[in-house]
């Protein structure tokens, strides 16, 4: 059976899953969740996802949610096709550094980028005014955390070492949207050359460009 992804093409957490599927050349069926109609809060949806969020996947009856867990599952299951995206699971230290990098994204990037996405991208779609105070605070927060990124990326090519992992890819969806709404911290080469070098490298991957194109085509 084909792997099924339940989500929204423009939603950042759905896009994390799609970029890994494309990196791994895994064919899948995409089922759009009608978020405006609140399908994801219906009791039948909650049976598969008790928190009423998206995305989730159904891989021949195996139901899984939470984007990072799904990214890891796909990367492990299809380890031998496409870019590895994870260190050898038997390598204790490399695995620990990959998990450190995933946590860095969750602690030092996403808490600032997701509110910007909500305010400057999500709210206008629904005809709601963005809260510029929240945006300002998050831009300042992100700006200071990127100094840590610069220190890491001055020493190595990617966040977990010299090979790309799911931790790098996890930055793509919100990073792309904040740039589009005018928060260009990732692209300021003179300020943080290594962050920008890294960002350009991951942003231009064909897998990600395909995800962006299908999201844009659907609007």
């Amino acid at each position, binding site marked *: 059976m084909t792997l099924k992804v339940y989500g929204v093409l423009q939603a950042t957490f759905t896009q994390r899953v799609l970029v890994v599927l494309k990196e791994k050349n895994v064919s899948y069926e995409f089922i759009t969740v009608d978020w405006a109609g609140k399908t994801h809060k219906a009791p039948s949806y909650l049976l598969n996802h*008790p928190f009423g969020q998206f995305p989730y996947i159904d891989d021949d009856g*195996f139901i899984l949610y939470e984007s990072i867990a799904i990214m890891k*599952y796909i990367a492990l299951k299809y380890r031998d096709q496409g870019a590895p995206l994870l260190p050898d699971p038997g390598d204790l*230290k490399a*695995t*620990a550094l990959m998990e*450190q990098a995933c946590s860095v994204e969750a*602690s030092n990037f996403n808490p600032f980028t997701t509110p910007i996405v909500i305010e400057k991208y999500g709210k206008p779609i629904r005809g709601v005014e963005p809260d510029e105070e929240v945006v300002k605070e998050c831009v300042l927060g992100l700006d200071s955390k990127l100094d*840590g990124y610069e220190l890491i990326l001055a020493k190595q090519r990617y966040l977990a070492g010299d090979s790309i992992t799911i931790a790098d890819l996890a930055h793509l969806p919100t990073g792309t949207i904040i740039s589009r709404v005018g928060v260009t911290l990732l692209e300021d080469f003179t300020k943080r050359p290594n962050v920008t070098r890294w960002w350009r490298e991951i942003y231009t991957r064909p897998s990600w460009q395909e995800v962006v194109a299908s999201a844009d085509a659907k609007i």
Partner: protein
Amino acid sequence: MVFKLFGNARSRPTLRVAHILKEMQVPFEFVAIDVQGNEHKTAEYLKKQPFGQIPYIDDDGFVLFETRAICKYIATKWRGQGPALFPDPSDLKATALFDQALSIEYSNFDNAAVNIAVEKVYKPKYLNKPTDEALVAEQVSKLEAKLEGYEAILSKQKYLAGEYVTLADLYHITFGFYIVEEGGLMLFTDEAKYPNMARWWKDITSRPAWLAVKGGL
């Protein structure tokens, strides 16, 4: 060389790492970082932890930060010595469900719990500042909205990742215990409202390793 934990004796994330070290029966040396003196913001410190946060570890020259990554490393390296706190790595689906449970804690619990802890405990106790009760109420209702999801999961299985306790369960203690014990909130200890979550909470917080470290380092 002995395993070194760099952190603060009162810091909850530092205590999370100490808890897992106790679970796995790993002897360690605690090295206090002078947080009030901003030692964690110095250039020297940033070489170990580029974001200037605590804690980090040094295991015979291998430096690692971010508590969840550290705890997983400890539970992997000393797997045979304490309880198996995550599934057999060769079991793809069980591993995915464990990763899902880890993300549940991070997405649906951690943020609200940290915010409540800051308002209800840190501010009055350590910073001599008043609690913003409106913010607490907002965060409590945000957290309570998620507890239905927890109750649904824990009514079908004993722990968040299945029938065995994992790191994903134990990570909830770090701030959960704090807001219940010191913040005086009932939340997941409410047996009438969330019977399965209350059963689970009692189970994970009565583990000897936690009882050994909960008072601080």
